[in-house]
């Protein structure tokens, strides 16, 4: 009897996960395809590239004395065949719609190809190289920021909800408006105060120029450059986070089962940990993981304000010079990361949450 029940439960979980994975996978494909279309301006980039090819071919031929000596028709024929060759080499002879699916397929198989213009610091045009070079700075800065924000939020939120109506609680409510402004905006103010006026911290960038040779000095230099961007994010995002956590915890601490536990004389620490924190943790962790991944995309404006050499800056550069493969590459990686974490979270909750297990 028990065994039968178990296997049904497993089947349910597998079915649930299967459906979720399918849905997320379809979303992923649609999202990447949309990016392909937008990044190529619906085929408009091709026309630009085509005219560039023509320009290049004619420019090269004009420097060729043997070509100049030929009759007009012959010259035209040669030029056309060269252009055709070049277009075929670049794969521009097929209609855009056909190629868009080829791009989609390449993106989905993570065959990101080569950039049109952008190169990595080492001079490579492989998009994987470029992305892997830009990812670490972004991950370093924004993971640190988000982890700090995450713990500060929960800690402040819990303390405030424990002492509802206290001074701390009122301060948190009173300062929530700080979050109506984004991090990059505080960044400008912090640069103004600490870099321009007091001259104690750098304006931007990731390390001093030239970068220090020794490892610990290098790390120290990076740390120094991280202070302002980190501070700007903490100021901007902790207040609203602490405020909403506090409200969230307060709502949960009013539940009947918490009251009952209190009446039974369960110590407040345990109530907090087992009765309030545990049921509220899944949505909190979900939002944390998703924010983290979104932040790896690079907060483009923050990176711009602090000249941080991360993915956001890469994206801005790529958009600025129509480097469609790079744009598609970055967004593909991002979409994959997001999709995988959504599925992973779904699986985790499917295993934990009894409502899914028994089909509620």
């Amino acid at each position, binding site marked *: 009897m028990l065994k039968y029940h178990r296997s049904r439960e497993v089947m349910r979980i597998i079915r649930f996960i299967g459906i979720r994975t399918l849905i997320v996978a379809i979303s992923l494909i649609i999202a990447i395809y949309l990016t392909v279309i937008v990044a190529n301006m619906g085929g408009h980039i091709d026309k630009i590239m085509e005219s560039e090819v023509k320009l290049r071919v004619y420019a090269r031929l004009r420097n060729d004395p043997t070509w100049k000596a030929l009759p007009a028709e012959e010259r035209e024929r040669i030029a056309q065949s060269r252009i055709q060759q070049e277009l075929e080499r670049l794969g521009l002879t097929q209609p855009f719609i056909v190629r868009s699916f080829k791009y989609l397929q390449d993106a989905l198989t993570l065959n990101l190809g080569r950039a049109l213009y952008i190169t990595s610091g080492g001079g490579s045009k492989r998009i994987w190289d470029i992305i892997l070079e830009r990812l670490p700075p972004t991950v370093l800065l924004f993971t640190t920021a988000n982890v700090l924000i995450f713990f500060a939020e929960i800690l402040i939120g819990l303390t405030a909800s424990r002492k509802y109506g206290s001074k701390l609680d009122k301060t948190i409510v009173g300062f929530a408006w700080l979050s109506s402004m984004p991090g990059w905006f505080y960044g400008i103010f912090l640069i103004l105060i600490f870099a321009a006026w007091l001259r104690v911290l750098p304006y931007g960038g990731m390390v001093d120029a030239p970068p220090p040779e020794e490892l610990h000095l290098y790390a120290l230099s990076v740390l120094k450059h991280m202070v302002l961007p980190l501070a700007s994010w903490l100021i901007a995002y902790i207040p609203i986070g602490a405020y909403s956590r506090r409200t969230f915890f307060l709502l949960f601490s009013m539940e009947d089962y918490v009251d009952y536990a209190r009446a039974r004389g369960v110590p407040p620490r345990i109530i907090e940990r087992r009765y309030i924190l545990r049921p509220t943790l899944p949505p909190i962790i979900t939002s944390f993981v998703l924010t983290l991944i979104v932040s790896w995309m690079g907060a483009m404006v923050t990176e711009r304000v602090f000249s941080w050499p991360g993915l956001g800056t890469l994206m801005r550069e790529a*958009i600025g010079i129509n480097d469609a493969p790079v744009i598609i590459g970055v967004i593909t990686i991002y979409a994959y990361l997001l999709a995988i974490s959504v599925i992973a979270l779904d699986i985790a909750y499917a295993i934990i949450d009894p409502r899914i297990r028994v089909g509620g």
Partner: protein
Amino acid sequence: MATRLRESIKILFRYKSFIIGLFMIMFFVILSIYAIVIIPYDKAIRMWNSIEYWEDYPKLALPAWINSFSSKKLPEGTIILDSRKTELGITKSVQRIEFGGVGTLININMRFTYEYEDFPSEIALWFYVNTTEPMLIIITWVKPDGTEVLVYREVLSSYQYYRLTGDLEFISRFEARLISKLGKKPNYQIPSEIALFAKEDETILDKETVTPLKGKYQVKIKARTGDPKANLDVKINIYGKVYGLLGTDDRRRDLLIGILWGAPLALSFGVLASVATVLLQMIIAAIAAWYGGWVDHLISRINEVVMIIPFLPLLIMISYFYKFSIWTLLIVVVALSMFGPGVKTYRAMFLQVREMPYIEAAQAYGASNARIILRYMVPKILPTIVPNIVLAVPSFVFLEAALAILGVGDPQAITWGKILDEAYTGGALYWGRYHWILAPSLCLVLISIGFALMGFTLDRVFNPRLREM
């Protein structure tokens, strides 16, 4: 319903934070109306993007009220000496001469008083010559103590703009004269505007001690040409260091105009985007909840796709490729954000509303689906959504600013974000031109705090979950 609304409003006004927020927003509303009334939008844009219009304004001037705080009185605005305008202190004589051929002798005299304790920022001259014959022009500058400086000696035969500031030839000539007069060379390179205004004694030799001479200055312009019908007009601009309420930027534009016109754009962009987004999200959520089935499924799937697409990069790509005006941008922003997490939350609310008896009653008397959604379901949760609308306004204002900072905003519109971007890329932070950054930033701060204070209070009053605790 009406009495309940009146009750709620009464409660709202009991909160100080609401009143403060309201005042801030009212301030910007009045500013917007003022801007629209005094300068029409298309005129403002033409003015803002023109170069000629700002010709007579000092570059990167600080706000004029700085003078009441600083120990030195900085020169304000621009001293414009224009021979075409017969103002007090400007005289002009045109003489036909006939000796060994014909010709014209032109004499222009300009007098002005300089009472500031600091030097001007820049000096520029315009020569309007209406002859093609060569014309010799000599300009002598007379300081209040009688010292004469030769400023210009050139043969012109057409219109000419001459920027005295930065003219190295003039400076080396001046320094040579100084050495012969004082026997010493100054320990710094004297800029032209200091050369023309400084007291020429020991103090001029050091950058720290050099001081301007106060009093009546005179500019003597003499011109001679062989054309008997020739005429010459000269404009001299002596640019100051402070101007107006907010100062100017590196294109000499009065920041007050920019800030003034930024207000209606920020307000209308933020409010329209926020209202449209939330309303559309609500209608979509209501449709999903009301029809259920495949409609509901489809909307949920679209939601998931939208949540996977990174919003900002997509928006930047679209606006980079198509160079939108701010109003098209508004539509794109709304279109991109009408799906997303909000729809999910509202759908959950509508699922409860759907089961309420009054909806069933409406159905029973034959109300159409559209009527049920728009007239019965949406209004039901509207009060709980109003705070969200108000709270979302600053985020859209900042979205516009973010796009401007990334260089993909409306290339023509005058927005705070654009001024901020120009200040930032113009190196306002490096050169210490803080007013340029602070003017648009403080406006953004005030507008977002205003909406945030109102929004949080509205949230407390309309969503009283936590009030009674």
